[in-house]
């Protein structure tokens, strides 16, 4: 599949964001990955051409970062955090069930092209352990059952909501967002402050603890 001319134009629009062109390379690789589902040799050549680098220079960068894939990813990328906090609290059990259900292993894709699964590292969501990701959106406080349910729904085309984020779309669509193109979803979930994020504030209010700034305790009293 050749890239349409519009891809080159979009790559050039990424370059225009930066004081120096090469800084655009990481988001550019996200963009080409959003079109093909992986970073193909052709995509590397296109990025190299836009940035006036050699394909080897671009490939050396693409191969360094875990999120760039060398083989096509399925429609949905499912990550299970197995770093100890999540892994011990249930991530390994989720991984085992997921891999058995789908009959594939780490970094493999189901024969129908629906799912690629990956054992991922810490997602900075440890207070929500164990954490699963669907196309990199948070699926916090996951369980074996919630993960099975998510897979069934995604397979059936039913809506699945991220716990702190939008409805799950696809791996390719997430990659386009990562390239910096507005997807109109930035307001999804309000400020995303759920019970976990509000835990300390709730305790402080219940126990009448003083806030750091005195005016902060009364809403709207900014002076």
């Amino acid at each position, binding site marked *: 599949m050749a890239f349409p001319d519009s891809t080159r134009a979009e790559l050039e629009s990424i370059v225009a964001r930066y004081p*120096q062109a*090469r*800084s*655009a390379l*990481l988001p550019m690789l*996200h963009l080409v990955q959003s079109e093909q589902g992986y970073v193909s040799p052709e995509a590397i050549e296109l990025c190299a051409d836009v940035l006036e680098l050699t394909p080897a220079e671009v490939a050396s*960068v693409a191969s*360094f*970062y*875990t999120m*760039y894939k060398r083989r096509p990813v399925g429609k949905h990328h499912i990550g299970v955090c197995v*770093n*100890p*906090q999540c892994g*011990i*609290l*249930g991530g390994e059990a989720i991984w085992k069930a997921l891999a058995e259900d789908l009959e594939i292993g780490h970094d493999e894709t189901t024969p129908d092209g629906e799912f690629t699964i990956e054992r991922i*590292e*810490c997602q*900075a969501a*440890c*207070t929500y*352990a*164990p954490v699963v990701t669907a196309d*990199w*959106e*948070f699926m916090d406080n996951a*369980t*074996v*059952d919630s993960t099975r349910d998510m897979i069934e729904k995604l397979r059936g085309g039913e809506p699945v909501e991220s716990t702190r984020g939008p409805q799950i779309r696809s791996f390719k669509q997430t990659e386009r967002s*990562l390239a*910096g193109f507005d*997807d109109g*979803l*930035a*307001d999804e*979930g*309000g*400020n*995303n*402050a759920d019970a*976990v*994020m*509000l*835990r*300390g*504030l*709730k*305790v*402080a209010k219940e*126990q009448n*603890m*003083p*806030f*750091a*700034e005195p*005016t*902060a305790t009364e*809403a709207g009293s*900014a002076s």
Partner: protein
Amino acid sequence: MTLTPNLTAHWDEPDSYTVAGYERHNGYVALRKALAMAPEDIIGVVKDSGLRGRGGAGFPTGLKWSFVPQGDAKPHYLVVNADESEPGACKDIPLMLASSQHLIEGMIIACYAFRANHAFVYIRGEVPHVIRRMQLAVRDAYDNGYLGKDILGSGFDLDIVIHSGAGAYICGEETALLDSLEGRRGQPRLKPPFPAVAGLYASPTVVNNVETIMSVPAIIRNGGDWYKSFGTEKSPGIKVFSVAGHVNNPGIFEAPLGITMRELIGYAGGIRDGHELKFWVPGGSSVPLLTEEHLDTPLSYEGMESVGTMLGTATPMVFDETTSVVRAITGWLDFYKHESCGKCTPCREGTWWIDQLLNSLNEGTGKIEDLDTLQDLCKQILGRSFCALGDAAATPYPAALKYFREEFEAGTHTASAELFDPNAPIVFSGVSTS
């Protein structure tokens, strides 16, 4: 010690991340004040506040800003390190989701102070919702006249670019982050020169953590003495603690530095019902673990140093008695091995060696001499690697051995999974414990 909501004070208002939600509670008051001050006076206030970097190293923020040479005719840059990836840490991601305008205001004040007209937020790639939230924050700030040319009629210009990483823990190291932001492999640079002299594009650059920058507006509003009135003498101020693991109510707690882990566990609803604390890690997997005996030690830079560990990111992980220490440490070394960038030999080779030996102990096939070999390996790596990732990889094992030697000795004949039922530490039901 009580909690002191500061950055999180209005998170119960769902629009806390918007310009309107932020302005309702003093948002952009500090910017107006700052733009009327001399830039060096702002650096002075931040110095006076005693604010130290919240990314883990704890370097004094005002001092860092003062290292940027002035009148040098080179462009200056601010790069916000939003690559939160430290195992255990869950603070910058929630902060950016719910307080994105705090970050923008802090960035403008910082850039005005050390005269930068271009700033970047380097966000790890695995968090698309945070990236779109910060992009929205930047757009809204432009629309409200807080970014762009001649901000609020001050004559000061600033542009902010939100940049997405692509999955590399090492990019949390500030010079690796800069290489990555230049479109290269994220590998650390030799220091000196430090980024304040030669950073992004070889120009003077300040790299600050998200929480550090977010702390600035309230300091400018209320003064350095106000901020210093919280915390301890050597660790002034307020910190966002994320408490994770085997507690009844994991979550975000904002408190003065110097609060104790016993207090935080109390606010988090205590250790998981029916269980007891086994070990905890105060500041991410890169710092030595602690046990019950350290629960009353102040969570401050100096307090944690006094018990042989570090405050780090101040994001404690808690594990109860069902957890195998050997399994946890092995898991962390799997991580460091995976994330070693390969630039220097001690880390590239050493993480594989440590991990191999730990895995054999975890599987119950280790040899008793492995315990000493591991100690020796960690000693060889510590201080000899190119950056702190190697040091971090050499950190978990020695502390774990100190407090739980018998568990590592058991690794010479029994797998951790036999000693500790892997289903027992699981926090959801539906997986039977044998």
